[in-house]
């Protein structure tokens, strides 16, 4: 049972009750309702939220896309999507509740204002029949070229009562200039507090757990600095190729697909100072400071790669240039590695090595904090040959968890030391399924909590860094492909660490 937010304060009976905090009534409009994201992520997330009664009690959702479709056809299509991609069992009563509040509006940019009039009519109907109170969440799950028309349309028709929020999917621009232009466009119609730039990595439990790990435990934060940390390694590795998205990927490459958003966000969360509280702006203020202090890497500290033919799970897979829709002489990078420095009091001279790519040997997203060696191990050299430095490993996928490598004595005669691995599987400690990132982020937006969304200045800092790197790259022609699918990237990526007497973590 839920009790409305405004009644909570006045109601003395609420004290001590465990109540679900449901967001205020609102209507959601999804632009790009026939797209992959809506099918794979958004509707399964909405269904799971409905399943747990986490959606507003008064709710409705409008799908907008080019395809001509009736409300019922839209419902059928989304029902199939939820059944295929949802994480919960399919319950007719839950679906019926959600489906009752589903409408579809067909339209393209060429239809001009008519589309927005139609959307507006539907929303007014929702306000009247479903009590959505003029509150709106607009979700832009469309390619960037469509942004302008939609943003203008929404701006023109925005509701005069209640609140309006706009969720913008990546890519947020393709360089600094376009991102700034996009910001200017958005700000013409929306206040920064109404704009929610989504980076679904931030919705993942382990990423948020990073904050808990660092700031809820007295033992980590005191050693989380240049004095104790030797270096940090962040890996975002995928085994999949471009999955038919050549159009997008040819222009994006690994740097815009992963580095600009997910990777830089992971760096920011790992390196940031403790925020004074978890209010949206406190956290984001700290994150943006990190992004600002990332030293622009020189060309020697950046490696790019592109996969050629190779093997994944024992099966031969084509090289990037052979993928459908890709230019056979494409210079798009599918791998990036870099050595970065955060120039501040805490991290000066502590390298952060990052790498991200497609068609690598294993799917994993990890942050590894490698600590300095014990200053003088009082063991015989031979006895300690199996000893590696302590590593705190934060596993973001596939299995969310934390592990710590520590040196321990091998039982028996003498004092032989070797590294053992204490492995804490996050899902195992709490008897609850981990929510999907999109569930968390959708509810946060409905509640108006922007902590896990990217702010304007973060995006700007991210693009500044990307633009400098891309400018270096324009100066030469790489000899691609330079790594085989199913390996850990080009040899130059290993050399990047070897030069410093380090190596990538073993996998």
């Amino acid at each position, binding site marked *: 049972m839920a009790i409305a937010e405004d009644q909570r304060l006045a109601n003395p009976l609420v004290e001590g009750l465990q109540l679900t905090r449901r967001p205020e009534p609102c209507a959601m409009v999804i632009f790009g309702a026939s797209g992959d994201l809506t099918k794979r992520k958004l509707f399964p997330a909405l269904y799971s939220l409905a399943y747990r009664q986490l959606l507003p009690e008064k709710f409705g959702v409008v799908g907008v896309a080019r395809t001509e479709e009736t409300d019922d056809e839209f419902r059928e299509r989304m029902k199939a999507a939820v059944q295929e991609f949802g994480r919960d069992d399919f319950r007719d009563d839950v679906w019926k509740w959600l489906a009752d509040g589903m409408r579809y509006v067909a339209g393209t940019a060429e239809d001009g204002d008519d589309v927005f009039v139609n959307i507006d009519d539907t929303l007014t109907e929702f306000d009247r029949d479903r009590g959505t109170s003029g509150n709106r969440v607009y979700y832009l799950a469309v390619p960037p070229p469509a942004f302008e028309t939609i943003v203008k349309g929404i701006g023109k028709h925005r509701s005069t009562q209640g609140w309006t929020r706009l969720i913008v999917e990546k890519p947020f621009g393709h360089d600094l200039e376009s991102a700034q232009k996009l910001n200017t466009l958005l700000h013409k119609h929306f206040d920064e507090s109404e704009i929610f730039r989504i980076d679904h990595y931030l919705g993942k439990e382990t990423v948020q757990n990073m904050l808990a790990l660092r700031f809820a435990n007295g033992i980590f934060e005191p050693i989380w600095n240049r004095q104790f940390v030797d270096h940090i390694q962040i890996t975002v590795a995928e085994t999949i190729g471009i999955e038919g998205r050549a159009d997008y990927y040819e222009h994006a490459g690994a740097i815009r697909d992963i580095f600009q958003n997910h990777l830089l966000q992971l760096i920011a969360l790992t390196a940031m100072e403790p925020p004074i509280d978890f209010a949206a702006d406190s956290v984001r203020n700290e994150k943006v400071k990190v992004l600002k202090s990332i030293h622009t890497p020189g060309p020697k500290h950046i490696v790019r790669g592109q996969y050629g033919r190779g*093997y994944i799970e024992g099966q031969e897979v084509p090289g990037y240039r052979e993928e459908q829709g890709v230019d056979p002489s494409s210079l798009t990078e599918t791998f990036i590695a870099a050595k970065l420095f955060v120039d501040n009091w805490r991290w000066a001279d502590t390298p952060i090595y990052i790498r991200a790519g497609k068609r690598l040997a294993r799917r994993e997203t990890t942050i590894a904090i490698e600590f300095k060696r014990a200053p003088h191990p009082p063991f015989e050299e031979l006895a300690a040959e199996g000893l*590696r430095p302590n590593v705190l490993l934060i596993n973001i996928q596939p299995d969310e968890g934390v592990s710590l490598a520590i040196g321990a004595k091998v039982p028996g005669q003498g004092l032989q030391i070797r*590294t053992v*691995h*204490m*492995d804490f599987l996050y899902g*195992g400690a709490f008897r609850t399924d981990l929510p999907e990132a999109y569930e968390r982020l959708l509810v946060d937006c409905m509640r108006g909590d922007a902590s896990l969304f990217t702010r304007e200045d973060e995006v700007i800092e991210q693009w500044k860094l990307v633009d400098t790197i891309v400018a270096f790259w324009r100066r030469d022609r790489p000899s691609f492909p330079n790594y085989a699918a199913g390996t850990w990237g080009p040899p130059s990526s290993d050399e990047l660490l070897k030069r410093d007497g380090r190596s990538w973590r073993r996998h």
Partner: protein
Amino acid sequence: MATTLVTVSAIERKLAELRLSDGGSRLRTSVMTHIAWVPEEWVEAAEDVLAGLAERHPSRTIVLFPQSGGDGLEGDVEGESFPMSESLTICTDTIRIRLHGTSAEHPASVVEPLLVPDLPVFLRWRGVPPFGEPAFEELIGVADRLIVDSTEWPGLPKPYARLAEIFDRVAVSDIAWARTSRWRPMLASLWPSIGKVERIKVTGTEAQAQLLVGWLRSRLGRSIGLQHKRSNKLVGVELDGEPAPFPPGDPPLPADLLSDELDKLSRDPVYEAAVVAAVT
């Protein structure tokens, strides 16, 4: 029998499931990933040794069975717990994968996603490794240490020449070498008279004979003749016709031999020199 898993991601999911379903601790320790490459003719022998291994090395074991023909892979996963005391249980998982077609030629792409992160990888290769072939080359690229038993190799000492070529790429352990470990201290105790030995006669396996003479040649820095009398155990060494005393103690068990090698992490220069000298 569990259902067959046909993709690496299905195997990964099964491993995660196993971990969540065991009622015990969510905290787990492991020390390594152990890969075994087991061609058809070695299946039985391999299973026997593995049975004794799990208790001593909390690890993930990946047993690969290359098959001729067909396509794709078939895997199954088994989790085992060994109660050590009331409050302590050692958990291991064993993944068995039959590799068909290209996956048998490119096993690294199957194995890499399944390694326990950050821990050393040991590769046990049954029979003579196919030096230079992609499957072997790929797997030693993944492994920190290769464990062979040259007792299993026909045509010695010739294959030692190929083995010596990979010393710079991967640390090597040879169980045949471990099987001479009682004899070497005893022979060393015969110094200085053994320093003048011209030829030795070894009653034992071909591998033991070759490695012992290689060891003496490389340590003493000169050529020494070898006479070999076949036996499935090392039972006697003669130095210039004089029988050497029998070393004390019992010969180690097969699971112990493998287990001891799994405690070693770096290269063994004395063994490497013995291998090189065995072929010269």
